[in-house]
């Protein structure tokens, strides 16, 4: 690990003024620092800031402090009651030990687990911009089929963020100049394009302080994760679904996907294909067509396209009470 300066911040304002890389749970950052994939010169420890609470807002939503551990968020009675898709997504990710340490803000900022990002002997445009992408033409079973670019086919690894995308979460930040910003999660992540090293709209030194959830949505919620082993593995495909049916028609639908793209994926065309329709397999197939129309396999991840179709249709059946 490369040497760095370390300081502990005693307020969010002091943290952003310190002008370094933030560390809280550290479960992803230290992993990457050991491999010298991340080499921050200055670490600012934010783990003791007063940002580890979950609070109800007057509008019925929740404000989650950026330092709330994944375990605590998953087990929170208000989350279980109003946002079970979020509890389920969190519990599907990582291990008990990691969930105890990993934080809400850090989970949003996880880096990809693309094998070539991790292998410093190989080209990777995300790790060394301009060096190339060894994943294309390489082992890409776990990598993306949507939102990719010629420079990068990495996936975003989070389960939590997929649920938050379906829940229309808002990310609240503190900027180095002291101003606050509220970023809808749909605007938070960036497509790789030709700059895959830039993954979010956060400015250098901008600190996530909270994540806001709107009031609990109507309808059924589920999180389904398909992976290569039964536990403690990243998603090949995951679905966070929230669907309500009223008077025999789909009245609302929010569907987000993990394992498919460089960000927690959501496509308004999928939901448009469902809204106002009587639930049926034919309607669900239309929604899957909308999701996958532009999907592009890379060889060893081609299977994700038919797999996603089947998983989405199965989820929609469960969410709408098993129509014909």
């Amino acid at each position: 690990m490369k040497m760095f300066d370390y300081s502990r911040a005693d307020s969010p304002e002091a943290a952003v003024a310190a002008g370094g890389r933030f560390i809280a749970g550290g479960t992803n950052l230290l992993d990457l620092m050991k491999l010298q994939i991340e080499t921050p010169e200055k670490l600012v420890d934010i783990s003791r800031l007063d940002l580890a609470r979950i609070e109800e807002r007057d509008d019925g939503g929740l404000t989650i402090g950026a330092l709330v551990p994944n375990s605590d968020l998953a087990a929170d009675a208000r989350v279980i009651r109003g946002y079970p898709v979020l509890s389920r997504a969190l519990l599907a990710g990582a291990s008990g030990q990691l969930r105890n340490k990993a934080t809400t803000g850090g989970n949003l900022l996880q880096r990809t687990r693309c094998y070539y990002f991790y292998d410093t002997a190989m080209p990777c445009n995300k790790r060394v911009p301009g060096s190339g992408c060894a994943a294309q033409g390489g082992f890409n079973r776990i990598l993306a089929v949507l939102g990719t670019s010629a420079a990068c086919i990495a996936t975003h690894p989070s389960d939590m963020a997929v649920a938050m995308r379906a829940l229309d979460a808002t990310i609240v930040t503190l900027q180095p100049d002291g101003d606050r910003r509220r970023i809808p999660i749909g605007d938070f992540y960036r497509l790789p394009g030709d700059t895959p090293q830039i993954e979010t709209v956060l400015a250098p030194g901008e600190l996530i302080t909270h994540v806001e959830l709107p009031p609990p949505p109507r309808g059924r919620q589920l999180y389904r994760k398909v992976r290569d082993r039964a536990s403690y593995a990243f998603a090949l495909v995951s679905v966070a679904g929230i669907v309500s049916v009223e008077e025999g028609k789909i009245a609302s639908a929010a569907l987000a996907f993990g394992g498919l793209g460089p960000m927690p994926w959501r496509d308004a065309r999928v939901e448009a294909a469902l809204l106002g329709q009587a639930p049926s397999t034919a309607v669900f197939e239309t929604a899957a067509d909308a999701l996958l129309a532009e999907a592009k396999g890379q060889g060893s991840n081609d299977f994700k396209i038919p797999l996603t179709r089947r998983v989405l249709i199965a989820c929609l059946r469960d969410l709408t009470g098993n129509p014909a």
Partner: protein
Amino acid sequence: MHFTVNGQAREAEPDIRASLLDLLREHLALTGTKKGCDHGQCGACTVLVNGRRINSCLTLAVMHQDDDILTIEGLGSAENLHPLQAAFVKHDGFQCGYCTPGQICSAVGMLDEVAKGWPSHVSASLTEIEFSDEEISERMSGNLCRCSAYPNIVDAIRDVSEASA
């Protein structure tokens, strides 16, 4: 920096880059906690910090000022085994033994999480936990055993959970 390890106040000045695992093993000579993968994948380094199980390899020692750390050495001794240690012996829950300290510290933390009513990925209900072998396997999935003593590890943990229920 100071902190408490197994009930004793300790002081150390580790390298700023040292993990909590390295602090325990290299500075305090508490070598019961094992270094396996050093990347949070195997769980051999599991310890309890302020009562919660974590991977000690993926946290900086300097971030643990004033924390209360419990390692395998603090759970029991050869003369006075912790119930989980005794159950692992009884059920032959290991072969080479390298993962065992992590398995046992993890199980201590895991049983406490169950007692708090925390659900898991395999819980049918998020509010009513029915403890089962499937729950043990899921909740212990962060601890790998290359000898694959898993069935006996599950037996040992079930034994202790039933005794304390």
